[in-house]
C-alpha cells in the first residue's frame, strides 16, 4: 500500500446477523443464568480470596512489598466483581489505595490492611447482596 492511500472496507455484518436474530437471551436472563453457573464455584472463590488476602498480609514487610501486591489485590478484586461481590470488590479497592498511600508508614498500612481484609471477609460471607452501607460502617470502625 502506498503512503497516503487508505483502504476502507465495508462494515462486516456477519456477527450482527448471527447475534441479532431475535433468539437468545436478554441481559436479565443472561445475568441470572451466569449467576446460577457461577454459584457452584462461588464458595471456593470466597475461601480462596480470604486466604489470598491473609497470605499477602503475612508477607507485607516493606514498601516494595506493598507496591508489588497491588497487582495481586487487583486480581482478587476483578474476580470478586465477576462473582457479583461488588461490596467486597469495593473494599479491596480501598485496601489497594491505603496500601499504596505514601503518607502512611508501614505499621499504619498494616493496620489498615487488617481492617480491610476483615471487612472483605465479612462482605464475602454476606454474599453478593452484601450491603455497602454495612460494610462501610464496619470498615470505618475497624480503621479507626
Amino acid at each position, binding site marked *: 500500500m502506498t503512503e*497516503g492511500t487508505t483502504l476502507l472496507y465495508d462494515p462486516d455484518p456477519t456477527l450482527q446477523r448471527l*447475534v*441479532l436474530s431475535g*433468539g437468545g437471551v436478554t441481559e436479565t436472563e443472561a445475568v441470572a443464568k451466569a449467576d446460577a453457573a457461577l454459584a457452584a464455584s462461588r464458595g471456593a472463590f470466597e475461601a480462596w480470596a480470604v486466604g489470598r488476602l491473609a497470605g499477602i498480609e503475612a508477607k507485607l514487610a516493606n514498601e516494595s512489598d506493598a507496591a508489588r501486591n497491588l497487582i495481586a489485590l487487583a*486480581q482478587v478484586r476483578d474476580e470478586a466483581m465477576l462473582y457479583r461481590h461488588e461490596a467486597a470488590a469495593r473494599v479491596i479497592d480501598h485496601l489497594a489505595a491505603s496500601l499504596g498511600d505514601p503518607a502512611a508508614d508501614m505499621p499504619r498500612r498494616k493496620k489498615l490492611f487488617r481492617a480491610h481484609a476483615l471487612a472483605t471477609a465479612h462482605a464475602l460471607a454476606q454474599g453478593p447482596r452484601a450491603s455497602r452501607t454495612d460494610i462501610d460502617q464496619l470498615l470505618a470502625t475497624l480503621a479507626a
Partner: protein
Amino acid sequence: MSERRLDLAQTSVLIVEPNVRLHRVYRDALTAFGTGHVSTVPDWDGALARFGEERPHLAFVEVLDEERRPVGLDWIRRVRRELPFPSRAAPIVASSALTTARTVCEARDAGANDFMKKPFGVADLFRQLGRVVEFVRPFVVDHAYVGPCRRTKIGENHPGPERRYATQLHGGSIQGLSLA
C-alpha cells in the same frame, strides 16, 4: 421497553487474560450467556496463533502484563496487520484496570474496537457484547493505522475539502476475503 436479545449460539469468543483464575469465570459466564465456543489463553504469543487458527468472532484482551508493559497493545497491532482477512477485522475489546485517557487512546490507536474497564461484572460483560455487535464500523487499512474506523460521529456540515488527509479507496467487503 423490551430488552435486546443476543443469540450467541453460533459465535466463538477468545479471551486473552494472563490472570488464569479469571479463565473459568469468563468461560462459565459466557457459556451461561449461550456463547457457542469460548477459548481462553494466558499469554499473548499463544493467543496470536490461536486467533489465526480458531478465527473467533470476537476477542477480549488484557492490554497490560504484570509488569504493566503494554504487551496486549502490540498483540492487537499484530492481529490487525499480520493476520489475513477476515480474522484481522474481528472485533477486539481491550481490557485493563489501568484506565487513564492515555491507555484508552493507545488501545484505540492500536486497533481495539472498544475498551472495558476492570473490574467489571457479568452484566457489564453482556452489555459489552451487545455494544460490539450493534456498533459495526468500516475497517481501515492505512500505512499508519489498521483497525475499525475511529470516527464515531458523522459531520454533515464539514466545511473543508477533505476530512481525511489521504485518498480513500473502497476496499470492498470483508466477507469472502481470505487474504490480506
